[in-house]
């Protein structure tokens, strides 16, 4: 089986896996980074969203053989929950079941990186790839706006 060296959350890992193994399953089965979730396997739900060289990607669609850049997962967003989005998610009590929220947070983090003060339309556009089956969308919108304000030091 081929070896791959992956850089995940700033750490290098060598994994043995078939070349077509999606990054999602490397993270979950090999590296025990279980925060990234399986929802559909087709890039439709966004539960598996991670950052690949700073861009939000669906890790179920990224073969390990191609995952040769810097990868950040929810565990690497910050492990202590201090990212403005993680704080806003707790303040707004966004989660219901919570299963999709790692993917939501990673998509939101990528959005704020490129667009520190997103409009409602920007938020809906960037977050439309992430399904929340419990329906927490209104709190997601509100939390992203608050996090954006906190991160840019703006006033409400």
């Amino acid at each position, binding site marked *: 089986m081929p070896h791959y060296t992956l850089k995940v959350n700033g750490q290098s890992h060598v994994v043995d896996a078939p070349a077509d193994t999606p990054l999602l399953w490397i993270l979950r089965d090999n590296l025990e980074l*279980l925060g990234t979730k399986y929802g559909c396997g087709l890039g439709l739900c966004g*539960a598996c969203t991670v950052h690949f060289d700073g861009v939000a990607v669906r890790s179920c669609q990224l073969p390990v053989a191609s995952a040769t850049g810097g990868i950040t997962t929810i565990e690497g967003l910050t492990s202590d929950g201090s990212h403005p989005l993680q704080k806003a998610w707790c303040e707004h009590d966004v*989660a219901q*079941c919570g*299963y999709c929220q*790692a993917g939501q947070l990673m998509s939101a983090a990528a959005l704020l990186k490129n667009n520190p003060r997103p409009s409602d339309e920007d938020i809906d556009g960037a977050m439309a790839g*992430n399904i*929340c*089956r419990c*329906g927490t969308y209104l709190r997601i919108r509100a939390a992203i706006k608050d996090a954006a304000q906190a991160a840019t030091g703006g006033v409400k």
Partner: protein
Amino acid sequence: MKTETDPTLPAVLKHELNRRDFLRISGLAGGGFAIAFYLPGAAFGEVAPALDDTAKAFTPNAFIRITPDNVVTIVAKNPEMGQGVKTSLPMIVAEELGADFSKVKIEQGTLDPQLGPQFAGGSMSTPMNYEPLRRAGAVARTLLVQAAATTWGVPVAECEVEHGSVIHRPSGRLLTFGELAGKAAALPLPDEKNIELKKSETFHLLGSRVGGIDNPAIVTGQPLFGLDQKIAGMDYAVYVKCPVFGGKVSRANLDEIKSLPGVRDAFVVEGTADYFGLMPGIAIVADSTWSAFKARRALKAEWNEGSAASDSSASYERAATELAAKPGEILQNDGDLDAALAGPVKVVTARYTYPYLYHATLEPMNATARPTGDGGMEIFAPTQTPGDAQEIAAKTLGVSKEKIKIHFTRSGGAFGRRLSNDYVAEVAAIAAKTGRPVKLTTMREDDAQHGHYRSTGWHNLNGAVNSTGELVAWHNHFITIGLNSTDKVGRAADMSAVEFPGRFVPNYRFERSIISTNVPTSWLRAPGSNALAFVFQSFIDELAHAAGQDPLVFRLSLLGPDRKVPGPGKHDRPYDTGRMKGVLKLVAEKSDWEAPLPRGSGRGIAFHFSHLGYVAEVAEVSVSRGGQLKVHRVTVVADVGPIMNLSGAENQVQGSVIDGLSAAWLQEITLDQGRVAQSNFNDYPLLRINNAPAKIDVHFIRSDNPPTGLGEPALPPLPPAVCNAIFAATGHRIRELPLSKTNLSWT
């Protein structure tokens, strides 16, 4: 014929209610419900094995443990699936205890008879646990106060509890719960039945906004869910069932599958005839999830599909049309329907229909098992019914229940799907064959095509209003489904013969016919109600327009004077018209019901009583001339008695609105050649953020009625509110869901 209990109640719920009644009755005869329920003073045992039992810990019951280091631990007894009970049930204990909730340690309980009935369903966690958990907290508080009073040599009446301490106001002395734990543990337990509960006006925790207890773990990606469970050295499995429900394995390329990289084993599981249990199938066991998934795609199986392989949604539709032309079984016949319809009235006739729905939990069905060597098994499962999980695993393995240890994990959504434990039976069968620990993951496509679906149904309706606009006649010929039966209605596919507006219309007939189908159906969030409210609240809207009345005014008249209308069965709660009118009037006020809107925009109103909750909703929509729908704002008013956790309650209501909109707008499961035609979120879409309303305003009438659950009752009014709004905006009456099938364009 009248049904004794609400047929839409999950069986598990009936079971648990019966069990609870039994405990209560046996308690009266033999020394107290509380003792049967709580076994006071019993050790925590497996609930909290990490806690040291020797250090003078105060454990007045299975829910509370206070150690001398001042750690207050409260056990969360029921499965958490996003409905918030891991936070709200411990809040009830903490309120009575007087603990500082921000410092309380909350532990998820395992399956344990000391914790009472443990299931998540029927919106019953709050109503079933409110009183017992208050008593559990109050017992602990009473003993802590007694311990403090004894220590200080002061009267108990001079002591009070605040933020995890007992305070003696006259002297300003204070002792923490931890400091009192040893002394409290030595005191005799008071009789729980006579314990004094707090006055609800003094509550400071219940009714406030508290964030979910697992939020910090969720936002940092901690492994909370079923699919996140790991056992050292475990295998990864998938389980493949016949695409036509109930079909058996005829042959498969198992040798080829076993030769694939990473595959450790592949074998046929004979299974049972239980559509909700262990169905026949093929297990593939591999060294990783991906190897198992790839092998599943390479599997070539032939099945003995049976006669249902020729079934389709079209064939069921034809059967429904044929049955509608014949008389059904008359189950309710009030007044003289035929005379009323022949009188000087306006008659409206309509046929409403709705499709099968899939639960589509974002975390697919899964379970992880470890054989324990004695023929038993330890199983980690995201389930709503851990007791049933234990039973089905024991049955699958042919061992006693005691040999099955169930850990119920957080569920990545459940919505009723995890009331079934088919995946638990499957993982048990696989681990029994391999003798090794294994995680079963259901691929999304298999999950979608082997659901236990919300049933489809057809309602052939006649209604009549008289010259003064009163609803005087209502006739419903309900065509529903049976699971390979024309005699017995399928699970969660029946309805009460007097479902509203039954009991409110003088000339009323309900008849029913059953189509035999081969599709397993089960409870989906607000079972029955999630479809019936669409039908009846839409048809009531049609009748309001026929009567020339405002839809709100018509509804208020139909409800009539404030009174309690007896429930369908003698054990059912009555229908309180005053509470329903209360939520209706407030939702009209809060939604600006009477403010005019331009053509192409409209408001719709609907209400529904389910799960003991009274809810009314107004949707405000616009439809472009081209037919593009936008739902701008939804206003919800609910009366479920006092609110436990305001943040969680609002989240449940907003989620119910999104869930109801998602299903009503977009979703249907169809059958073709006996197979489910949909497979993933491309052909079974879920509402996304860009189609979510800009505003969902939630208001609670915090009546002093007993508190009831909120996971379900806010869903049913949403589909009809939206459909009625579409009618107001465009004149299009939606009689078939999903509404995406109707061209909404207008000129």
